[in-house]
C-alpha cells in the first residue's frame, strides 16, 4: 500500500480583506484517504476547502500565503481551470443545472470537448454508477434534473464531478441540508470513492467526521484571533484519545 501525499498544505495563511481568517495551517492528505476538516461554524473550514481548487477566488477576494501543493506542485502554478477539473467540489446546496439528468453529468466532458455520443454515454453511465445513481435513474436519463430529491441531486453533483475523473473531491458541508438516510448514502459513497480518488470534507457534523474520515483536522479560533490548527491526526485518535484538551472539550460537545 503506497501512501503518497496527494495534497500538502503548509504554513498557509488566508486573509480576507485586511482580516486574517486562517493562520499557519499545516496538514497533508494522503492519496485514497478521507480527511475531515472540523471546527465551530465560522472557523474558516469552507474558506480553506475552497482554496484547494481556487473556487474561493470566484466568490470573495481572499489572499493566501504559504504553500498548497498538489502532487508536489504549488496549485497556483496550475491553470486554475485545469486545477478545478482535477479537484472537484460538491457544495452545500444541492444544485442542478436546469436540464436533463444526462446533460447534468455530461456537462463536464463537454466543457473539455468530448462530443461523441458513445463516449458521453459511457462516461454518464460510469459516473452515475460511481455515484450509486445508475440503477435508480437509468430509465429517466432524459428527464429534468430539477425533479430529483435533495439527496439524489447531491449524488448527481458527485456524478457530475466524477465525469471528469478528478484526483480529489472536496465536500463542502455537502450533507448539511440532507436527511439522515440521504446522508448515510453519501457517506457510503465517499467510502467507495476512496478507491479511485482522495476526499476532503468540511463538516460541522462531528459524528460524520468520526464515522467517515481517516484523518481529522480540527480548526478553531481564539476570541478575536484567526483560526489555527488545534489538532491533526488519525480520526480514531482524535476522537478517542485527543492530545489537546480543547479537542476533547469540543468533540464531547462542551463548547463550540
Amino acid at each position: 500500500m503506497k501512501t503518497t501525499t496527494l495534497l500538502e498544505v503548509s504554513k498557509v495563511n488566508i486573509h480576507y480583506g485586511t482580516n486574517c481568517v486562517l493562520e499557519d495551517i499545516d496538514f497533508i492528505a494522503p492519496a485514497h484517504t478521507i480527511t475531515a476538516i472540523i471546527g465551530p461554524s465560522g472557523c474558516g473550514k469552507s474558506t480553506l476547502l475552497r482554496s484547494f481548487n481556487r473556487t474561493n477566488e470566484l466568490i470573495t477576494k481572499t489572499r493566501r500565503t504559504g504553500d498548497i501543493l498538489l502532487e508536489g506542485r504549488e496549485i497556483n502554478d496550475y491553470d486554475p481551470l485545469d486545477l478545478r477539473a482535477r479537484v472537484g467540489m460538491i457544495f452545500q446546496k444541492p444544485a442542478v443545472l436546469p436540464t436533463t439528468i444526462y446533460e447534468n453529468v455530461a456537462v463536464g466532458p463537454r466543457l473539455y470537448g468530448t462530443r461523441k455520443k458513445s463516449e458521453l454515454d459511457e462516461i454518464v453511465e460510469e459516473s452515475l454508477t460511481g455515484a450509486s445513481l445508475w440503477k435508480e435513474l437509468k430509465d429517466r436519463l432524459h428527464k429534468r434534473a430539477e425533479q430529483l430529491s435533495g439527496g439524489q441531486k447531491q449524488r448527481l453533483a458527485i456524478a457530475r464531478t466524477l465525469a471528469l475523473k478528478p484526483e480529489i473531491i472536496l465536500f463542502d458541508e455537502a450533507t448539511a441540508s440532507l436527511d439522515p438516510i440521504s446522508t448515510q448514502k453519501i457517506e457510503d459513497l465517499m467510502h467507495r470513492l476512496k478507491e479511485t480518488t482522495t476526499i476532503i470534507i468540511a463538516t460541522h457534523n462531528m459524528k460524520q467526521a468520526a464515522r467517515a474520515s481517516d484523518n481529522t483536522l480540527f480548526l478553531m479560533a481564539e476570541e478575536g484571533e484567526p483560526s489555527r490548527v488545534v489538532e491533526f491526526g488519525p480520526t480514531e485518535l482524535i476522537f478517542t484519545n485527543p492530545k489537546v484538551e480543547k479537542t476533547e472539550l469540543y468533540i464531547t460537545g462542551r463548547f463550540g
Partner: protein
Amino acid sequence: MTSVMRKIVDRMMFALFIFIAAVVTAFLVYFIFYIVSRGYTAFSWTFLSTAPHGIKMEGGVLPMIVSSVYLTLLTLLIAVPLGVGGGIYLAEYAGKGRIVESIRFAIDLLSSVPSIVFGLFGLVLFVQVMGLKYSMLAGALTLTLMVLPIILKISEESFRAVPDAYREASLALGATKEQTIFRVVLPTAIAGILTGAILAAGRAFGETAAVLYTAGMAPLAPVSPLEGGRTLSVHLYLLATTGHLEEAYRVAVVLLVIILLFNLASNWIMNRYRRKFVSEAI
C-alpha cells in the same frame, strides 16, 4: 489541445461581447454627433423664437415648441394623477385576486397597443365622437392612455420599494391607512413617481403617430386646449418627408436635446434618491 481551444473560444467570445458593447455605444455617439453637427444652428434665438414661414418652412419653430410643451404638460396633468392613483391602489390595496390579475393584464395589453392605433382611436372617440376636433385636448387624452401604463408601473414599483417599517411606524402612531399612504408612503416614493412622470413626458414629447390625427398639423401655437397644433415631432416628420432636410436637422436637434435632458433628469433624480434613501435607512 481542447484545453487550449476552449480558452481561445473564451477569449473570442469576450472580444465579441466587448465589440458589441463598443458598437452600440459608438452608434449612439455617432447618431447624436451626426444630427447635432448638422443642426446645431438650431441653437439660435431666432430659430427658437420665431414661426416658420413660406412654402419651405424656413424660419423658426416657436409654435411647434409651444405645441409640444402644451401637449406634454396637458398629458401629464391628466395622466400623472390617474397613474399614481392606480399605482397606489395596486401597491397598497390590491390583493392577488382574479380581478387584479386581469387589470394587470389589461395594463400590459394597453402598453403594447401600437401608437398608430392610439391615433386611430383618438381620432374616432375624441376628435369625432366627442367633437373635440384636432386639438391639444384630444391629443392629450390619447397620449394619456398611451403613457398611463408607464406611470402606473413605475409608481407601483416605487410604492412597493417603501419599507414596510415606515407604514408600521405610522400605523402604530395611530394614523389611518389613508393618512399613512398620503403622508408617509407618497412622500417617500416621490422620486420614483417623478422619474415615471419624466419618462412619460419623454414618450409624449417625442410621439408622432398618435398625435398626427388627434392634435393635428396646423403650424400655429395653440392657446386654448381646444385648438390644434403641430408638435416638433410632427414638424420633423413633415420636413423630412418633403425634402426640407436642412430645417429637419435643426428640428431634430431641438427634439433630441430636450429628450436627452428628460433622460438625464430622470437618471439624476433616481441616483440622488437612491443615495438619500440609503443614508436615511442607515
